[in-house]
């Protein structure tokens, strides 16, 4: 049975800091407002939905305890709608989408919502750690190194210079600014409101339009301290061809820390008929896989090939690629390995400009690709993210 995307919405992304516009909004509230918006703009009988799956990269504290179910009830959805939490680090939001699609494909579900949320200002990175980073026996013997070190390892091994990564970052900012100016996101953005119903934020707050390679060159490389603290030794143990790590990443060419949520409604053709909704895209294939965990961030190329193979497609069959901009080198390497031109990748800008609300990003960029395919009259898109500990997930969609 085919699975279709019927609609999607996302919040704007607030700076993930105490002075960010969304800092006062709880994680469950972000999802609640999206669920309500999606329901209301489609006049949806929520009892037609089977499940809401929300991915979170830090399902602890206020983001724990199956936030999805709390949001379902909080949004006033039918109590029959189930809720589930998924966690595959940064890919969580896309995995939630794939999990709904897979159950529709399998015929065990008619429709559901997949998405993600992360309030990085409220559940700061590190609240959820785990054995892979912090159990000495596991971390040491599996050559754990932080992601920034992995990003710099990619730059070192692939020969990306500071100018290369800064150039990519500046272009992400340029594309994001242009996309906002042209209103490319307006169909998906649901402004976030506060307790008394006033709008707190209606645009991506993290962007720095006008960023140039010149202005980025002033930023100090961020991960040299970690490298010298021992993680450069870890990197060399795994990759002895590294003479010295080249530290090129910093806040300006890495994904921004932000708050936000995104959700995607997926269902079968029959569901669409019953709900009176037209499908916008078919979910063609999806895949997840693991890759070398120390460098951590190179799975997207492999998982892209896997998803393409599942769909019996070639690299050239995809019109638009969207790879989460965890770090500039991740995308540069992806384009190099798969030989994809930059004008097919992240055409609306990415997380370097607009931010990466960890668990939410996968769902957000699924929506961005769909909107952009529709706007530009193109047909196929591939969405992928690298995730911690060498993981990666990809999804291929096709407009119908």
């Amino acid at each position, binding site marked *: 049975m085919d699975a279709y995307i019927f609609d999607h919405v996302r919040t704007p992304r607030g700076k993930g800091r105490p002075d960010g516009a969304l800092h006062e909004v709880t994680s469950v509230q972000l999802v609640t407002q999206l669920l309500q918006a999606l329901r209301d703009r489609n006049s949806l009988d929520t009892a037609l939905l089977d499940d809401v799956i929300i991915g979170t990269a830090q399902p602890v504290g206020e983001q724990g305890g199956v936030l999805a179910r709390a949001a379902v009830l909080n949004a006033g959805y039918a109590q029959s709608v189930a809720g589930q939490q998924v966690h595959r680090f940064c890919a969580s939001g896309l995995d939630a989408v794939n999990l709904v699609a897979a159950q529709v494909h399998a015929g065990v579900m008619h429709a559901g919502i997949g998405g993600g949320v992360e309030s990085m200002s409220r559940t700061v990175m*590190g*609240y959820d750690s785990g054995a892979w980073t912090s159990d000495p026996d596991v971390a040491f013997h599996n050559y754990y190194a932080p992601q920034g070190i992995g990003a710099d390892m990619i730059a070192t091994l692939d020969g990306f210079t500071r100018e290369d990564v800064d150039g990519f970052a500046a272009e992400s900012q340029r594309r994001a600014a242009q996309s906002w100016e042209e209103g490319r996101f307006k169909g998906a953005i649901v402004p976030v409101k506060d307790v008394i119903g006033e709008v707190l934020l209606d645009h991506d707050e993290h962007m720095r339009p006008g960023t140039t390679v010149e202005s980025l060159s002033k930023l100090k490389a961020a991960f040299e301290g970690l490298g010298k603290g*021992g993680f450069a030794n870890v990197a060399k143990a795994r990759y002895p061809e590294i*003479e010295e790590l080249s530290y090129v990443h910093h806040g300006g060419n890495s994904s921004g820390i932000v708050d936000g949520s995104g959700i995607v409604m997926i269902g079968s053709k029959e569901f669409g008929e019953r709900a009176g909704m037209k499908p916008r895209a078919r979910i063609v294939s999806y895949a997840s896989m693991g890759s070398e965990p120390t460098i951590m961030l190179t799975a997207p190329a492999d998982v892209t090939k896997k998803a393409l193979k599942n769909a019996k497609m070639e690299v050239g069959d995809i019109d638009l690629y969207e790879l989460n901009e965890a770090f500039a080198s991740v995308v540069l390497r992806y384009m190099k390995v798969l030989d994809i031109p930059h004008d097919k990748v992240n055409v609306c800008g990415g997380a370097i400009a607009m931010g990466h609300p960890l668990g939410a990003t996968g769902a957000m960029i699924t929506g961005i690709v769909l909107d952009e395919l529709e706007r530009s009259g193109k047909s196929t898109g591939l969405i992928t993210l690298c995730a911690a500990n060498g993981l990666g997930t990809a999804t291929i969609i096709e407009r119908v």
Partner: protein
Amino acid sequence: MRHMKIEIAADGFATLTLDNADESMNLVSDAFIAEMMDAIAQIAANESIKGVILTSGKPAFMAGADLKLLVQGYETMTLKSAFAFSQKASAMHRAMETSGKTWVAVINGLALGGGFELALACHYRILVDDPKSVVGLPEVNVGLLPGSGGTQRLIRIAGMKTVTELLLSGRAVNGPEALALGIVDAVVPAAEMDAAARAWLATGPNPVKPWDVKGYALPEQRGLIIPEYSAGMMITSGSVAKSGYNLPAPIAILSCIYEGAILPFDKALTVESKYFAKLLTSPVSRNIIRTTFLSKGAAERGAGRPAGVPKTEFKKIGVLGAGMMGAGIALVSAQAGVDVILIDRDVESAAKGKSYSETVLGKQSARGTISCDKVDTILARITPTDDFALLEGCDLIIEAVFEDIDIKAEITRKAEAIIPATTVYASNTSTLPISTLAEASARPDQFIGLHFFSPVDRMGLVEIIKGVKTSPATLAVALDFVAKLRKTPIVVNDSRGFYTSRVFQTLIHEGGAMLEEGVPPAVIENAAKAVGMPVGPLALLDELTFDLPLKIVEQAIEQEGSKYIVPAGVSAMKKMKAQGRSGRKTGGGFYDYPAEGGKKLWSGLSDIFPVSADYDVAELKQRFLYAQAIETARCREENVIETSEDGDLGAVYGWGFPAWTGGTLSYIDTIGVAKFVTECDRLAQKFGPRFAPSAWLRERAATGTGFY
């Protein structure tokens, strides 16, 4: 009880004094534990005892476990028996702290390892106010962890930061620091310790430890849900990578801390014992203990010294040649209280040699580690001169002039014309055969090699080379002098490059060979470092400059002709020389040395040595270790080294062969001679006869005869 006694004073406080009947130090051993258990039981059962003072009858409180016992763990214990061994000591400490009596450790001298663990099990620790009386848990340095409660008590007493820093460094701390860290409770002068202990006991302290009180909760008990704690574990685990991946102890220590903090105390102790068992039964701890403690100690106490020769006193020695080596030898001799006549061709050159001592001591003085008076005293012992007549009355001559047989011969004759007929004459040559040099001597039986390593004041090893005519009495004098310098001697027989230089060369030539094969240079360097070599072979060659190893090869070809197997790295060095790059001193070799920033591999390398992807890092690592190990085996076969201990000490302290292996011969033993030979055959097939095992080694493999 042989090793301790209990006295009960009128105030109701008992004193348990540890006083090992067989050794100069109190050591944790089976006998000690048995007596302690007995003493604890007696004390617990005696209702008249109101508190206990635990102290030592020796100058030190307690040095720790008996390494002669621990070194046997690898071959004699199973994981289960090693666990039981650790639990026994843990149970002893636990019996103390749950005895219902309050214990005070009166730490009258240094307390390390098991000694400090014993003190940690007491309810209060008083350390003597004396800079030499340090406390610490240095087990990591012998490939172990504090296995009788040390990891668990320290985290509960001092917290995460202190426990990780102290246990991973193995650092001992002095009184003021120990007090600041909270690992001792008071630091008082020796005379007041007993009174201080009684005064504290008189306050009627609680005999129940905090972790035995119901409801006790260590903050770290919540584990990784504390973000700062989780981040700390992540960062610290990463930092362990700096010491490489060959040492199992550091990360096991961290695991004990992490896992134990979450558990109730007794459960935590069992987990600690399990990690301890893994370390004790691993070859790494055996290798480190055997070579760096037992063999090193024995060598320093004169294991290789011929019996029956009276000990030589050194009042005045002559050092001929005030270059880098002569200058260093003069310094360490003067530091050891010996007067030095430092001779060079003119007074100015000799004075320049002395200025090295002035520089080194000046730095120490600036750091405050030595007084100005002491600096003056040491410097006054060195007389720079060009006058051989001043050598009159010298107890020893050490020649360190240019490496040229004729020059050395002339100097020998000049000196022997002045010095007493009984004086031993030593050459610090690193390349010329001692027996050849001895031909210039009127007294070849008194001629010997004393090969110091550079920088002399920092390198602990001295390679003593016997010529064919060197007498046992001469060897004894040389060993006495090395002992006077508090350095570690090994004794070898004459051979090209003696022992250390000969084997060390195989490392650098292997690096050159890999370059020829197309292995990327960074991989070569990292593979060598990954096995624990302090510096990669290409960087080492750059420091040496290529002329020296090439000269050695030329000499060998001259002397041995076609019999000589030209080392595999020669071709690479020649190609580099042709590019005008012969090492750091010539402006660059394999590396560039920019004025700013660190050295970088020369970008032109790949033009001369095209890189291929066809290499296996595991095999590169193996080759570095095997090349050195099999050359050492040859030295043992040829009797260049007479004992395996000397072979291993020379490897670890002479050229930095990794301590986790225990040295080149321990490394072969750890692999197993039979497996080593099989692998050598495979490597010889693939890379050449330098890996080919001899009939002698095959015989050892066949009969299962190891090197120990």
